[in-house]
């Protein structure tokens, strides 16, 4: 299958303009960007997609390839190659922030900027490093996903796969959004929350923006600060938002911060 169909790629905006590639995080799908991505369609070629195993890309999931974030980064590069994207502004939420970091490190010439929303290079505490979680907490998450197996039934997959476009926020979205095959969700959770990408951060070679909610239980303020300090040319912007999804809860601030970064570039001190 073609990459665009495999990853449910949805394009808007000016095809000839500079591309902005939006990657969603753990849990849901590209609809996470619906309040943010359209705002860039006037100036950019806006590309959204669903990660393998999520939304309309269930069939793209491969147990081995997607056992680590590297596999997801390869997917991102495959999409860039297939669509001929160059000079890409990569916008990644949650785990996709690190997926973008890995992709940029692997193919440095492909990207011009990274925007990392709620990034964390490692979720589990390690010595002096505070990720915010213990290994037991992650087990708790896996349990939580298992308990919510019951929101899933085997009829769900064909239903979701049969509606890959989902243009409107309606009944279709309600039935499929944030619903993932529990087995895939567990595997993705492991790949996400047991990853450690701290060593990759200094290798990022493009200007980078870290967007951070002032209160985020998944990627706390300290972690955002750690990421911003470890990436060479990086700015940290703390949004007056609560929760892990400022792209949903504070889209105006999110859009404004990204716009300013794209037009002005990173300034070292800003929060």
């Amino acid at each position, binding site marked *: 299958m073609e990459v665009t169909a495999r990853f449910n790629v949805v394009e808007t905006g000016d095809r000839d303009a500079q591309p902005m590639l939006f990657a969603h995080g753990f849990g849901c799908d590209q609809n996470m960007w619906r309040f943010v991505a359209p705002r860039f369609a006037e100036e950019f070629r806006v590309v959204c997609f669903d990660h393998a195993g999520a939304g309309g890309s269930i069939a793209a999931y491969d147990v081995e390839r997607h056992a680590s974030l590297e596999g997801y980064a390869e997917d991102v590069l495959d999409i860039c190659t297939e669509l001929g994207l160059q000079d890409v502004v990569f916008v990644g939420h*949650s785990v996709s922030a690190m997926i973008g970091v890995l992709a940029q490190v692997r193919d440095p010439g492909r990207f011009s900027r990274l925007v990392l929303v709620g990034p964390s290079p490692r979720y589990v505490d390690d010595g002096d490093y505070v990720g915010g*979680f213990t290994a037991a*907490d992650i087990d708790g998450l896996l349990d939580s*996903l298992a308990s919510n197996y019951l929101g899933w039934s085997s009829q769900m997959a064909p239903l979701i796969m049969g509606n890959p476009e989902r243009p409107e926020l309606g009944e279709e979205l309600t039935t499929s959004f944030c619903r993932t095959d529990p087995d895939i969700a567990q595997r993705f959770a492991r790949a996400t929350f047991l990853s450690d990408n701290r060593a990759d951060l200094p290798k990022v070679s493009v200007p980078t923006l870290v967007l951070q909610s002032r209160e985020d239980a998944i990627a706390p303020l300290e972690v955002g600060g750690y990421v911003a300090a470890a990436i060479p040319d990086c700015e940290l912007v703390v949004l007056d938002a609560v929760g892990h999804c400022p792209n949903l809860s504070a889209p105006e601030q999110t859009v404004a911060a990204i716009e300013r970064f794209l037009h002005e570039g990173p300034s070292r001190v800003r929060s």
Partner: protein
Amino acid sequence: MSGAEAAGAPTGEPPCGFLSTTPAGVITGANATLLSWTGHRAEDLVGRRFSALLTAGGRIYHDTHYAPLLVMSGEVKAVALEILRADGSVLPVLVNAVLDRDGEGEPRGIRVAVFDASDRRSYERELLIAKRQAEESEARAVDLARTLQRTFIPPVPPTIPHLEIAAGYRPAGRGDEVGGDFYDAFQVGNTWLIVLGDVSGKGVDAAVVTTLVRHTVRALAVHSTLPSEILTGLNRVLLDHETDRFCTLVIMSLGRTGGHWSLTTSTGGHPLPVLVRDGRSGGIGGPGSLVGAFDDPEFVDATVELAVHDRVVLFTDGVTEGRDGDQYYGEDRLHRLLRTPSQDAAELAHAVVDDAVDFQGDLPRDDIAVVVLRVPPTD
């Protein structure tokens, strides 16, 4: 509020927990049921984030699933979470939540109904454990089938000096059940024996007989390498065995004298092996009885002197009786494929298996086994 109209106001404290929060999830009120279930005091709850009441795993689930879903679709139903009580213990709950919007469509607040799911959750855990056990057990059974099946064929094809030999093998379906096809090739003195067969039925019973047949043939070959005599001995062993399964097979002995291969073959209830020579193809020998079914079976030997470039193909009915709808693969199609010129033994063996599998849409109903011999140009 919109939608269905209430049928008169209910009275009294509802038997479920009830919370209200700001759109950002900060608690603005909680009912008495929730307070008594959790042991929290109202003044400790108000001003805290709802997600802060949850276990760490639940907080992640809240932020990655629950909250986005609530914003997108305005409600969530029956989400399983765990609330931390004041004493540190855990209360499993199911949560429904609704996002209220004002006249402008701006989020105004969230109402959360909380149901005690302690009993239900322990039952569900048992279900999950049972499901996992069933999956593991299934995986072990598949693993066992595959392991067993591997013992039906030589781990590596033998090398026979001055003769190419190659085999192709594909278990039925997805390979999660043990079938009955097998082959073997071994040497007794100066004679090589090639055996290919099919035990009736599937599963562990058939596997036991398959193993018996392979080992019996090897044991009998020590006394006589004449194929018909081995078949007669095997017939006796199977009749005496408690199994009522029978089998079909081809046994072939090969000897080399004066730089030429001489082949003697006998068939028991099995498709005849095919000789391909100079672009023509035909069966070798004649039919014989099913093995393990009759007290007085008939097995006849046929001998052929092989020439350079001759190819000999042994196969099971999984090849010729493969079906695509109501079409059979058939011997004609096989012979056409076998007459394709100048393929070495390995290429031909693969070609036969691939063609037979393709014909059945990649999911063969029966095992497929093929052994190909080819006399290489004189060396």
